[in-house]
């Protein structure tokens, strides 16, 4: 049985179970008929459940252990991936992967957070929480893209930059700040895809680009709902309320003009069908890449500046 994102997925899981049992039976006419009926019902229930997700439930989907991660997308979208390692300063951070790849015959550079699927992998990947060397590695790889005039594609999926003693010693704040500044003037097109969890500065540190795409059930936030609840409500249990207040869904961000496009997910979320999720993303990615390639680099940099320059809302006081 598939792992549940949360209790809200129970009605879906029940039907999926029945389907599984039925499909093990010999395919008599009666069984096939029942199967068809169940499949219809499954679609309906999926639709129903996933169109009414609460903000906190979106977090659970975005953090689903079977959600496609950066390496899954790389495998499904690109060919000839050559992974690069290390920041040339301190070490190799396994929570960020990156390197050279071929996208529909065209060389590109790809960088993204990697969370790791099982316990061993998760520890190896530090749960996708990068340290300064991770961000420095990311920038080093992106600089290579600039040097050889190749576009950059980044995948964001992290709960945040790692809060640890070593990370602070080696300048977590400086590493993030430096990436923000340098990505804003990197002389090559950058497409950012928020695939899962967009956790604060640790996400933004590879998130400055010309186009920002976001998967339908991904989230992007200034702080995790748990962290926000602990600070403002002084109670971590208020995370659901915090998630509601923070407005983290792709639809919210699109409404606020903070992202460019929402990438739809297969029915019932990307964790149900990696291939289909990658296929839909492919369409969006390819179109955006072709558009960006047409723009002269100076215009591109100006547009990138203006894009972030516009972000923010305030009132002008009339005196």
């Amino acid at each position, binding site marked *: 049985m598939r792992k549940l994102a949360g209790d809200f997925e129970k009605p879906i899981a029940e039907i999926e179970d029945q389907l599984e049992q039925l499909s093990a039976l010999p395919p008599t006419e009666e069984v096939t008929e029942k199967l068809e009926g169940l499949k219809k019902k499954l679609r309906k229930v999926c639709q129903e459940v996933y169109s009414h997700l609460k903000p906190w439930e979106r977090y659970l989907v975005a953090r689903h252990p079977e959600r496609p991660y950066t390496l899954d997308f790389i495998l499904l979208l690109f060919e000839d991936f050559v992974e690069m390692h290390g920041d040339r300063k301190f070490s190799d951070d396994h929570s960020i992967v990156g390197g050279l790849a071929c996208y529909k015959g065209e060389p590109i550079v790809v960088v993204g957070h990697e969370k790791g699927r099982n316990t061993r992998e998760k520890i190896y990947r530090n749960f996708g929480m990068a340290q300064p060397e991770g961000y420095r590695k990311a920038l080093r790889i992106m600089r290579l893209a600039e040097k050889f005039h190749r576009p950059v594609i980044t995948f964001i999926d992290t709960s945040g930059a790692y809060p640890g003693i070593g990370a602070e010693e080696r300048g977590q704040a400086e590493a993030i700040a430096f990436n923000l500044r340098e990505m804003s003037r990197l002389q090559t097109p950058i497409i950012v895809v928020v695939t899962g969890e967009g956790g604060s500065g640790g996400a933004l540190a590879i998130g400055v680009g010309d186009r920002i795409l976001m998967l339908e059930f991904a989230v992007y936030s200034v702080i995790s709902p748990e962290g926000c609840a602990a600070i403002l409500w002084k109670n971590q249990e208020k995370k659901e309320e915090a998630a509601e*207040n923070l407005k983290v869904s792709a639809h919210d961000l699109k409404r606020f003009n903070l992202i460019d496009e929402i990438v739809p997910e297969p029915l019932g979320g990307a964790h149900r069908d990696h291939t289909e999720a990658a296929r839909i993303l492919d369409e969006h990615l390819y179109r955006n890449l072709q558009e960006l390639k047409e723009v002269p680099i100076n215009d591109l940099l100006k547009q990138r500046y203006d894009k972030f320059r516009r972000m923010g809302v*305030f009132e002008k006081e009339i005196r």
Partner: protein
Amino acid sequence: MEWFKKKRKPREPIGERRLKVPDGLWLKCENCQAIVYKEEILRNSKVCPKCNYHFRISAQDRLRALFDDGKYEIIDDNIRSCDPLMFKDTKKYKERLKESEEKTGFSEAVVTAVGEVGKIPVIISAMEYNFMGGSMGSVVGEKITRAIELALERRMPLIVVCSSGGARMQEGVFSLMQMAKISSALARLDEAGIPYISILADPTTGGVAASFGMLGDLNISEPKALVGFAGPRVIEQTIHQELPPGFQRAEFLLEHGMIDMIVERKELKSVLVNCLRFMTPNQ
């Protein structure tokens, strides 16, 4: 045997009782607990004369202390925060804004002013920690970006005095994106060869440290200021260990190569004038 049952009030701990002082004349140093005559602290740039602890000071005090003769002109004071997320925790965001405004007399957590430092025309943006923990929302982001753009336009050096807990949660992703907005503007300032000095006052953490805080041509910190990305409590909860003494203090950052120097408040202006002379064309 009545007296056996007689309840006695527990004695007040002596330490507490001794430290109670009437408001006004005397101040207790938060660091060394010494009781110091308030006038003495004020005369000493709000630094404890006993242990050299730097009290947090308001944005106004900052500007007065840094500009020549305490003279400056406040600019960009006409934008206010609104509440795009309709955020409500235990209190409404709008209420928190109003309270902060009443408490500090400032309309936001940063004040930008133009004036002269050592006769060199300079723009200074000073953050106000008492305004919602100096947190950065759209207005702070916009005001600092405008300060950078003004510095570009007039080719004037920019100094930002940071004092902030980080991004303002009540404005969600809008706050987060201010980090990218300001850092992009700083890239232009960098390319134009205009000096930017970041002064890290206690405390500078989160999204402020991880954007304009650490991007100065010079990063200067006040003694013992807390500077870092994650707050110490978050780190403690994550790694389940006690943090080493002095962790994330200015001295720790200097040791690890993250800042250029630690400068005492009394010396700050003269150090700035020296550096600005180096960074601006010969007069």
